[in-house]
């Protein structure tokens, strides 16, 4: 039964990908990308990887769809006609694909318990993490403690992406004149948005601080909180949104999150441990792990929130500028 669901979802994924390739209307392509992300999120749920599914749904289907729509507002809706011949690319793709398929023949069978993935570090995490860290959600233990250095790198990547986008596009000036955003007449939309936005922020906080016990954590929470402010900006206009969350404040937040994360690491080696070794943060190692994980998850949440919202501000400000011209 599970295999059947997987097959149907994978089939739908393939059809969506093919439509994305052949469609010329970029607006529809963006919508199909959102669909693609939701389908892969469903596959992840089916594989019991709820945390990954959560991230995929929040980032892939939520934020990136909005950002791509923001890009479309700048570039236009139609794909340019391509005059190149497709023969050489087709040849390259066929050879690469054949090599990849040939490579999979050597892979160990899918889901077999003797696979290297299930032999190397996973058994140690599963056996030791309840004693060493004691969090019910083992994914958070691995992500925030055993692999804390990797996650620090990921947070820095998010931060660097935001810096890159902002240095290209620039932030909006806070508190400009409120231009009619075209949504003034959408009374129902405004009322429901007012109802939904506080709930979304509350949910983001729940995801942030419940990440130790269930699926969730800093990445998802940051994206959800950013989505709440983006919804506000879409419905009530960008100038009002920049009144609520100032662009300069976002710059500080984005740097602060990475600083909190890296600072936790530095603190731990001033207390006599290794970099990002939370055992030394409290007299009891398990308590120290809990403190460390909550602090760095908070840092991740802040950076992701500021980066996502900053990128959206950048795109929206650019679109507004071109509209005025």
């Amino acid at each position, binding site marked *: 039964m599970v295999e059947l669901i997987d097959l149907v979802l994978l089939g739908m994924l393939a059809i969506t990908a093919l439509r994305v390739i052949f469609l010329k209307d970029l607006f529809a392509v963006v919508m199909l990308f959102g669909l693609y992300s939701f389908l892969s999120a469903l596959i992840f749920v089916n594989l019991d990887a709820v945390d990954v599914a959560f991230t995929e749904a929040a980032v892939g289907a939520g934020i990136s769809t909005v950002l791509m729509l923001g890009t479309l507002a700048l570039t236009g809706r139609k794909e340019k006609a391509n005059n190149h011949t497709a023969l050489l690319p087709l040849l390259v793709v066929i050879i690469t694909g054949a090599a990849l398929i040939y490579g999979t023949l050597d892979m160990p069978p899918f889901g077999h318990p003797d696979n290297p993935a299930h032999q190397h570090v996973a058994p140690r995490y599963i056996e030791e993490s309840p004693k060493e860290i004691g969090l019910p959600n083992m994914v958070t233990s691995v992500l925030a403690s055993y692999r804390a250095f990797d996650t620090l790198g990921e947070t820095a990547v998010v931060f660097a992406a935001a810096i890159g986008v902002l240095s290209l596009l620039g932030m909006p000036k806070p508190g400009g004149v409120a231009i009619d955003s075209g949504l003034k007449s959408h009374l129902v*939309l405004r009322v*429901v948005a007012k109802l939904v936005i506080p709930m979304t922020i509350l949910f983001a906080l729940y995801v942030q601080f419940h990440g130790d016990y269930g699926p969730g954590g800093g990445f998802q929470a940051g994206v959800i909180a950013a989505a709440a402010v983006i919804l506000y900006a879409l419905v009530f206009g960008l100038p009002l949104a920049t009144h609520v969350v100032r662009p300069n404040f976002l710059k500080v937040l984005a740097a602060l999150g990475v600083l909190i994360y890296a600072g936790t690491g530095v603190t731990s080696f001033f207390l006599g441990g290794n970099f990002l070794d939370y055992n030394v943060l409290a007299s009891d190692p398990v308590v120290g792990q809990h403190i460390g994980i909550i602090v760095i998850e908070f840092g991740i949440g802040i950076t992701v929130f500021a980066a996502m919202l900053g990128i959206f501000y950048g795109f929206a400000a650019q679109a507004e500028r071109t509209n005025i011209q």
Partner: protein
Amino acid sequence: MILEVISTILLILGAFFSLTGAIGLFRFPDFFTRVHAASVTDSIATILIITGLILRTDFDLVAVKLLFILIFLLLTSPTASHALAKSARHGGLLTLAEIRESKKGDND
């Protein structure tokens, strides 16, 4: 036992309305009728399916979470359909009846 039967009936009805919504989305002639078909899936099918799922839980935290999801979807999906139809209207899209009317006017 009775709960399970009721829940099965609700789930099947929900699946049926989802299916009719999907068929309508493909078969209906213009934008507004299609939005209408899609919003049927959003509202009545959601109520039926999630109520059916709630009846299958032990009425614990899972049921409460499902109830939250139901309330959230009931708030947002009809709003989305409404915003879609209204934007199309503002963009100048006419319904089928209005197109027929204007054609009649041209012939006279």
